[in-house]
């Protein structure tokens, strides 16, 4: 085992797959020579050559379309969109072309593509570099959306995504790239797509979340336990499309109370979907309504106020108290 941060774990996953399968290709703006603006792909071009790992011209739709065309040819493209705010330029190719290739061709062609993109707030980045657009992508049929919260999961989920024969949108939280190191096996292993993880067991209330908010929720849970003895169970969804509702329901059967925490704006997002599914499958186990802790429905703000815009442990604690006191 090695100690890796999330960025190194992702790079390690890419290396493992580039080595294992000659059809894996890596490309995007600046990913080749310098290894990306975050150096997530650093050294890979040197190791695997310019045919396998390469820089593209600055055109997101073409990055997406190139991936679709190469997918038809039997390659397994891992295409990077440099920052999340620029996926709109590529959205036709991701959310319309790649996602429906299997359907349109009656299974003759598929899109074994991973679209990687950094996202997520709290790092004081420029405008449109941090927005949480996962809900938008999750609403697209035919695409899977993965958001890892730690180095071990990031490597295993990335390997699983590359081996998946359908398009996967892989979102890497900027604040987690260098946040901490953890044990990561050097060999290849996968973390199943569509499977949530119970990161902390508890009996009083369930927090359902993903990405950076797993860590914010853990802080809130620590505080609640220390001050009030409240035992919080935390579920990291890991994949937000499809959602592992079974793990959520099993937890609610135990705790009878839940909140959902997401960084994205409150309306119409992943949290709304989780709550809708809880209503369908576990309403009789609930002792209180399921609350959301999320960003307000505004544009993502400039760096100055992002710390208060993003869900904080305090706001999570308030929501937990509310469902406990209902």
């Amino acid at each position: 085992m090695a100690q890796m941060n999330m960025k190194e774990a992702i790079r390690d996953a890419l290396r493992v797959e580039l080595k294992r399968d000659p059809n894996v290709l890596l490309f995007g703006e600046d990913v080749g020579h310098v290894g990306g603006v975050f150096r997530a792909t650093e050294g890979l071009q040197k190791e695997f050559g310019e045919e396998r790992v390469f820089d593209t011209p600055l055109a997101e739709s073409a990055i997406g379309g190139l991936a679709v065309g190469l997918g038809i040819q039997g390659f397994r493209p891992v295409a990077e969109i440099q920052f999340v705010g620029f996926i709109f330029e590529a959205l036709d190719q991701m959310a319309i072309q790649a996602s429906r290739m299997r359907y349109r061709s009656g299974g003759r062609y598929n899109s074994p593509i991973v679209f990687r993109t950094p996202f997520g707030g709290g790092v004081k980045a420029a405008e449109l570099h941090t927005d949480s657009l996962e809900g938008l992508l999750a609403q697209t049929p035919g695409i899977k959306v993965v958001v890892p919260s730690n180095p071990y999961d990031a490597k295993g989920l990335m390997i699983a995504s590359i081996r998946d024969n359908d398009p996967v949108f892989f979102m890497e939280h900027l604040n987690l790239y260098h946040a901490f190191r953890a044990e990561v096996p050097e060999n290849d292993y996968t973390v199943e797509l569509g499977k949530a993880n119970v990161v902390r067991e508890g009996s009083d209330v369930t927090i359902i979340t993903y990405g950076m908010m797993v860590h914010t929720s853990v802080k809130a849970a620590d505080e609640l336990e220390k001050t009030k003895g409240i035992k919080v169970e935390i579920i990291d969804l890991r994949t937000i499309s499809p959602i592992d509702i079974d793990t959520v329901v099993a937890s609610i059967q135990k705790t009878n109370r839940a909140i959902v925490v997401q960084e994205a704006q409150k309306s119409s997002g992943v949290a709304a979907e989780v709550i809708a599914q809880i209503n369908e499958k576990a309403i009789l186990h609930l002792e209180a309504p399921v609350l959301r802790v999320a960003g307000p429905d505004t544009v993502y703000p400039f760096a100055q106020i992002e710390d208060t815009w993003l869900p904080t442990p305090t706001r999570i604690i308030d929501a937990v108290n509310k469902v406990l006191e209902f």
Partner: protein
Amino acid sequence: MSKVPYEVYTEEVEALSVLSPDGEIINKDMLPKLTDDQLKEIMYRMVFTRTWDDRAVNLGRQGRLGFYAPVSGQEATMIGSEYALQKEDFIAPGYRDIPQIVWHGLPLYQAFLYSRGHQHGGQVPDGVNVLMPQIIIGAQILHAMGIAMGYKLKKQKQVAITYTGDGGSSEGDFYEGLNYAGVYKLPVIFFVQNNGYAITTPFSKQTAALSIAHKAVAAGIKGVKIDGMDVLAVIKAVQEAAERGRNGEGATLIEAVTYRFRPHSLSDDATKYRSKEEEGEWNAKDPIARFAKYLEKKGLWTEEDTARVKEEAKAKVNEEIKKAEKTEKMTIPGLIDSMFETTPKHLEEQKADFK
């Protein structure tokens, strides 16, 4: 003090023709090498396609087809460009480019199924290198570019061709595709059928460039403009572009100047934006009539041949539309199962609502 030689590219370019409107060879050097049998086959396909288009319009009116974009007038660009390729080459079509993929191997009844919104229409048989028609204008240009990179990486001497219209040449995807193909020197042919209109918008409102072919200059690839009503000019241009691609010389943009005799789709009225005079002028350039004159002079074709092919085409279309109509209907559970290789649990559950 600018050194940019902007004057160089501000000249009109003449579209290349091989045949005169009377079917005389006017450009001997550019005559593609074709045997008499091949010339007859090309004529056969053009007449067949015209008849199928006539029938398709009627079938559309009867409600037996779904979305259909007429092709009459564009037989030279469609049939000629496909004929210049090899079976192994790949075609990424727009919504109107159905003749190319059918002559490349997609069974006709599947083209009808595609029109009727049946998924089996896009289920291209193994060994047939085509994509189903694209609705998003320009998206297919990028797929062809990626497919061409695939050939290059696999070191296969195949090319990809993709089609769009004069309207499509204004899309961002068009420029992104040309630019990537230039940077990576890809074996891809961008074939623009400039039929003068994008639905109702005339070419004069589409671009201020002197021609679409000029746009190749900015991408560093080869650009040519040809007479799209002359099937021999089309074949010659595509043969040359394909050869360049196979030899590792990169991409070509071909602008073929053509005309669609019918409206944009079955739900449009062309009289609202086109004049009778204009239509008459273009009718006089009919690619089938022109090629027929050439073949008649060579003793390779007669009016009886045309009549015979029409009958054959009618019978074949009837047979294929019946086959399409008899194909089992899609089901919602089947649709759900076509979303992913392995259907996720939540979708399995959704199937239960449609039992």
